[in-house]
């Protein structure tokens, strides 16, 4: 074991109670050394984001102290944290969507993107992005960028500020395997420069790969700390969940029936008017999971939106159980026993300011079972429904009346998934279904998708997580530059082959 550098960050007995009474942290002691990458693990809702936000000055601890470079630091505002060299890349990006990447990187600095220093700053950013291998289109609006690219903008934003301590809250949850490799390269470079990082993820092999030390949080308390060299995934999972976790997903052989979803020659335009999906045809049969793998930004989002009725295709047919649905709205499609789990839960899946109960019936509020007297909704029934979902999906939230935004990211996703799967839909479209979910929750949701399949329903999974696609699917298609490059049964699609196809290489 090599010796650690001097301590750059330390917390002593940090406690955080949110205004609604939720106790998110209970006396957390944490420390970070120079040149160290310190992993932070924990189930959804364990308090990882809360701790990060306290360190980066966004939240104030209820009690406890933060020390930076050995000195007690009063970080009341992100500005002060940044001045101390502490910067955070948020789990849910904090980008201004209709500003360009360049503008977002410069926001809050001394440089005016329309002013004198702009071209110098641009050179610096370009150099920086080449240096650490994080390429972005600087003049593209953030709303037109794929999530992976938005992530890179966030990273560059912090690197441009020359932070010494980088807090990365689930940076890989929207990255593909090659992007993750690039990110890790970047983090290692920063390490060499003597910078430190706190690295949050739900992927256990990632912490083992990149971290020096790992701290596990459980219900707001440190439940263990271990040198990465002495850890393995089993130990970590046990530390997180408090019991042994079985990872082996049992997959029965599929009994595929007739097609439930048939897509033929589908063309969909993207936000910039270009053809994002360029003539895609495939069929999802009852009783099977069709997995679409692919690096994000290759048309998956547009495909998902076209299938959900959010974006109208410019050509082609979509048939659901024989019924042409390409011109139906999202609302109409939902009435045909369809479960839709959108990739961007915060924009498309939830209304963050509404309560969990309200969110739990979004898009289903017309159903008879929620109808009350006259034109009123039966709120008691809605709340019962929400409470049932909270119980059966183990959603960590104060109660059905709490706003969706008060939940941790993983639990937000559970609300969406539970809402979409609970009615036994004939067809389920799940886009990035386990992004940001902890091991236990991901496992749970994957099991649910398999169960849906086993009961004879059709499931389409679109995921940038190669392992997930390989694990779940019966049939795999790889999307690249708007086309389905190859479709084949999982047995024939090896990990290597799919990986190459994702990069556009056909063998």
């Amino acid at each position, binding site marked *: 074991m090599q010796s650690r550098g001097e301590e750059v960050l330390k917390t002593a007995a940090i406690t955080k109670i*949110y*205004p609604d009474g939720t106790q998110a942290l209970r006396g957390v002691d944490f420390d970070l050394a120079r040149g160290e990458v310190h992993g932070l693990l924990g189930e959804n809702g364990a308090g990882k984001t809360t701790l990060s936000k306290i360190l*980066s000055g*966004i*939240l104030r601890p209820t009690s406890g102290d933060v020390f930076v470079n050995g000195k007690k630091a009063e970080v009341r*505002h*992100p*500005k002060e944290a*940044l001045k101390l060299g502490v910067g*955070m890349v*948020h789990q849910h990006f*904090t*980008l*201004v*969507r*209709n*500003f360009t990447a360049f*503008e*977002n990187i*410069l*926001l*809050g*600095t*001394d*440089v*005016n*993107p*329309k*002013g004198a220093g702009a071209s110098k700053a641009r050179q610096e950013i370009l150099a920086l992005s080449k240096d650490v291998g994080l390429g972005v289109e600087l003049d593209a609006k953030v709303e037109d960028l794929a999530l992976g690219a938005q992530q890179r903008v966030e990273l560059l*934003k912090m690197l441009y500020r020359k932070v010494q301590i980088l807090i990365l809250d689930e940076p890989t949850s929207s990255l593909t395997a090659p992007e993750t490799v690039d990110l890790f390269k970047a983090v290692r470079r920063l390490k060499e420069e003597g910078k430190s990082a706190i690295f949050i993820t739900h992927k256990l092999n990632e912490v083992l790969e990149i971290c020096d030390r790992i701290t596990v949080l459980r219900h707001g308390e440190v439940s263990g700390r271990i040198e990465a060299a002495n850890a393995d995934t089993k130990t970590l999972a046990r530390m997180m969940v408090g019991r042994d976790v079985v990872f082996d997903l049992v997959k029965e052989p599929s009994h595929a029936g007739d097609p439930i979803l048939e897509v033929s020659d589908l063309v969909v335009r993207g936000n910039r008017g270009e053809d994002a999906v360029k003539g895609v045809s495939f069929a999802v049969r009852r009783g099977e999971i069709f997995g679409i793998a692919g690096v994000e930004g290759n048309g998956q989002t547009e495909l998902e939106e076209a299938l959900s009725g959010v974006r109208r295709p410019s050509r082609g047919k979509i048939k659901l159980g024989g019924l042409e649905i390409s011109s139906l709205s999202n609302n109409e499609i939902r009435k045909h026993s369809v479960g839709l789990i959108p990739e961007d839960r915060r924009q498309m899946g939830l209304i963050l300011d509404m309560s969990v109960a309200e969110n739990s019936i979004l898009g289903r509020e017309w159903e008879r079972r929620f109808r009350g007297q006259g034109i009123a909704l039966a709120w008691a029934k809605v709340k019962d429904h929400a409470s049932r979902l909270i119980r059966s999906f183990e959603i960590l939230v104060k109660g059905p009346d709490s706003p969706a935004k008060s939940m941790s990211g993983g639990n937000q996703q559970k609300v969406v998934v539970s809402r979409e799967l609970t009615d036994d839909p004939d067809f389920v479209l799940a886009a990035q279904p386990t992004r940001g979910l902890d091991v236990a929750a991901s496992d749970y949701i994957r099991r649910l998708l398999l169960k849906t399949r086993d009961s004879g329903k059709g499931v389409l999974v679109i995921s940038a997580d190669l392992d997930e696609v390989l694990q779940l699917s019966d049939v795999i298609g790889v999307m690249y530059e708007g086309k389905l490059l190859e479709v084949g049964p999982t047995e024939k699609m090896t990990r290597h082959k799919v990986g190459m196809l994702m990069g556009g290489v056909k063998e």
Partner: protein
Amino acid sequence: MSFDVTSVGAISVISLDFMVPIAMTAVGEIFAEKAGVVNIGLEGVMLTSAWFAVLIAWTVNDPYLGLIGGMAMGVAFGALHSVISVWLKGDQIISGVGINLFALGFVPFATFAVWHVSGVYPPVSFSFGRIAEISTPWAPLSYFVPMSVVIAILFWYVLYRTKWGFQIRATGENPEAADAVGIDVEKTRIIAVLIGSALAGLAGAYLSIDVVGQITKDISAGRGFIALATVVFSGWNPLVGLLGALVFGYSEGTATWLAGVPEVRSAIPHADYLLGAIPYIATLVVVAVAIGRSRPPKAVGIPYKRE
């Protein structure tokens, strides 16, 4: 009835006069909304500021101090509105409605309390006349006309070309993002509201001190609301806002001019009332056309809370 170059000139001078208060108020409101705060109490701000400007001017017998007083009243309302809606995170609409209701009650009451006149048009008139003007072949033109053009250009420049404006726009689009990079969201919003309200206050003072030369309890005559419509029409761009104000100015100016033509008066019964409705009809038309196409700042109207 003769309609020639002279009448066009005369209409234009009146119209430009009417453009000024709408342009200034709209530009100020664009500024505040770009930071994320809407103030539907502009009508009340204008009205109260118009009254206060007259009070000051009448007390110290100086129209310029009156204008400054009106502006100060605008700032005071901005302070009130930002305390409620930015600092205490209250509802911006309720705060704005409160300001309007206050003004409706306060101005007639205070006018009576100070000058002991009431009724529709309290005869408190000043002899300042137009306080500063450029002569034209038709009628004198207020310096406020070129000034509001300068203000619109200046505010456009600040919003779209300076670092500060960049931060203001970020605050109105995504306060979390602004906060995360160290921008003080509350401070930015409060300052933008204060500046925006100052312009509404100045617009009110201009009406009472410069244009009419007296205070009436309905001197603002819906101009605060027309300014809000102009903001939507402009797509939150001060330069387009100036253009919108010009359209409203002409609709009001033309109506006013027509109402003074004897032939029109005799031809149309109740011509005053009918013609007086033109600016409001124009507002409806403009908003109906513009509303779907212009995109408001994303976080406008939503108080920013961290936890």
